[in-house]
């Protein structure tokens, strides 16, 4: 009988080891998938360029509010690779700082909404009953509109700014993670290893976070990666419509919406920010797609 006392310990170890093994195998498969490596490299490259933007560009002062009308509307040249905008600011600089905003947007939105959604998903799936019904109906309400339109409706209440846009997107995004984790939790909580923990007197807290949560890890990781691109897309949409970042902030969506007024003659004002946003989102999608295959997560996550 003595050996039985060691079971929870051992079981826990196996579980995390299993998760680690799966991640290890995933990493192996991921390395062999050239497309997702390209995606990862793109994300990394842009993240580094954005993070070190002040050191990469020769004109760090051209971000934010900057005016130099003498150099306005210059086409791409050796001095200004991407040309200059209506106020004479270097577009390459603004694209780099704009990418910074995009990454920050994704990080803040997912940083707020994922833990919140995962927690509610775990709790609702584990407790079940009325708590689950209420939480899941709440997600239904938030998902009654496409994400962008819901974010727009929430933005309506505020004076437009990038903070409010992030708040609006975060307040919707938790629902996806809540539903995902709720589904997994519901199917896992009846598994034998969870029952075993319960019989051995494990607390609810322990069961939820040590038994169930590790099993949600792979789908959550994949979803976060795929979400990052989507969140950036929604954020750019809000800014494009004038409900996100406000000029003179160097947001990519804002830059495109301003540049569009000068098409087709001053194409560089639109083309380069568009290209940057496309490559960032593409990078995240390729990466997420590769991760999904590597971690063997079902399609549709």
């Amino acid at each position, binding site marked *: 009988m003595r050996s039985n006392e060691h079971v929870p310990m051992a079981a826990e170890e196996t579980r995390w080891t299993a998760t680690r093994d799966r991640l290890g195998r995933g990493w192996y498969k991921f390395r062999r998938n050239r497309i997702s490596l390209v995606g990862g490299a793109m994300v990394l490259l842009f993240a580094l360029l954005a993070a070190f933007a002040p050191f990469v560009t020769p004109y760090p002062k051209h971000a934010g509010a900057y005016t130099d009308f003498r150099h306005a509307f210059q086409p791409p040249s050796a001095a200004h690779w991407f040309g200059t905008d209506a106020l004479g600011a270097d577009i390459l600089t603004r694209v780099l700082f704009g990418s910074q905003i995009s990454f920050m947007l994704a990080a803040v939105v997912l940083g707020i909404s994922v833990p919140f959604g995962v927690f509610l998903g775990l709790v609702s799936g584990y407790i079940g009953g009325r708590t689950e019904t209420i939480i899941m109906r709440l997600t239904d309400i938030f998902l009654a509109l496409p994400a*962008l339109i819901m974010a727009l409706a929430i933005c309506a209440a505020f004076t437009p700014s990038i903070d409010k846009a992030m708040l609006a997107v975060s307040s919707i995004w938790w629902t996806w993670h809540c539903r995902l984790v709720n589904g997994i939790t519901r199917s896992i909580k009846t598994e034998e290893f969870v029952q075993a923990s319960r019989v051995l007197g494990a607390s609810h807290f322990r069961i939820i976070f040590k038994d169930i949560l590790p099993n949600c890890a792979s789908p959550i990781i994949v979803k976060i990666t795929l979400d990052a691109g989507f969140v950036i897309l929604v954020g750019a949409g809000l800014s494009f419509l004038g409900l996100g970042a406000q000029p003179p902030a160097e947001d990519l969506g804002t830059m495109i919406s301003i540049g569009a007024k000068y098409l087709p003659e001053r194409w560089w004002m639109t083309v380069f920010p568009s290209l940057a946003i496309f490559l960032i989102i593409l990078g995240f999608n390729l990466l997420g797609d590769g991760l999904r295959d590597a971690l063997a997560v079902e399609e549709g996550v």
Partner: protein
Amino acid sequence: MRFSSFLLRRGLHTIVVLFGLSILIFLISRTLPGDPARLALGPFASKEQVQNLRHTMGMDKSLPLQYWTFLAGIVRGDFGLSFQTRRNVALDIAQFLPATVELVLWAIVWVVILGVPLGVFAARYKDRWPDNLVRVIAFVGVAVPPFVVGLILQLTFSYLIGVLPITGRLNLMTPVPRTHTGFLIIDSLIAGNFSALGDALKHILLPSFAIAMTGIGQIARLTRGSMSDVASQDYIEASRGFGIPNRVIAFKYMLKPAFIPPLTILGLTFASELSNAFLVETVFSWPGIAGYGIRSILRKDFNAVMGVVLVIGLAFVVVNLIVDILAGYVDPRIRVRKEE
């Protein structure tokens, strides 16, 4: 009988969701700072004028009472006054909605006539260049913001080649056909006005394609996936053995069962198209409900925002219901699962 109870339950669920949505948006719009009456009248209006408008709009009453008035209005089809147009929001919606519906329907046509054949094509030449091409289209379709697609199309077809108009639904010179349905294409058909019809079609091509871009790639990928699943079935092998031509097998025996997964995500496609419409209408100055909604949001025209949100929510929920029913019709197995 069982199917009708399934419908009833879905219908009730729909009502609960829309009800919750209205409370959510109502709370957000009424409890947060900022005075819409002041915003509507501008900075030069006197205090009394602002107070008067607040009174006419019923904004000086308590919140539950305001919500009750609002709800009672909705039941009568009265969405309240719009600050910007100074008329009933229901009238505004009736004016702007058909343009967007027309646009989104065309986008769905694009998705079906381009996405499905592309998927079949990719499955037929799996892991060869057509398959890779479709893969690229799918990735690009999801990664390029729809407003950028719109701008690129404008740049190419309107500025460079100059074959298609830049903005709007009709040329200023084209006589507008009398309004019956609000759908220009149908209205001009009814009027037998073929110059207006041609003009309307020319105008709708680019914006609807920009909206459809995301969906085309997704549907193509999904069709490709389920086509290659079906391809490994025994009965396909048997048909090959009988010497039935590949084309017939692909379009007759494989497409119907393979079309079920794409059909079930058509609801999602519709959602992404509605979102895209909000971005693309701005690019093409399309006089639809999305543009109206955005103007309302920027001007804090809350009755209008509520109206737009509820109408879109209703459309979204109803389309999902229709998709479910359609999928159940095509694939009886889904019907059984849903009924249980």
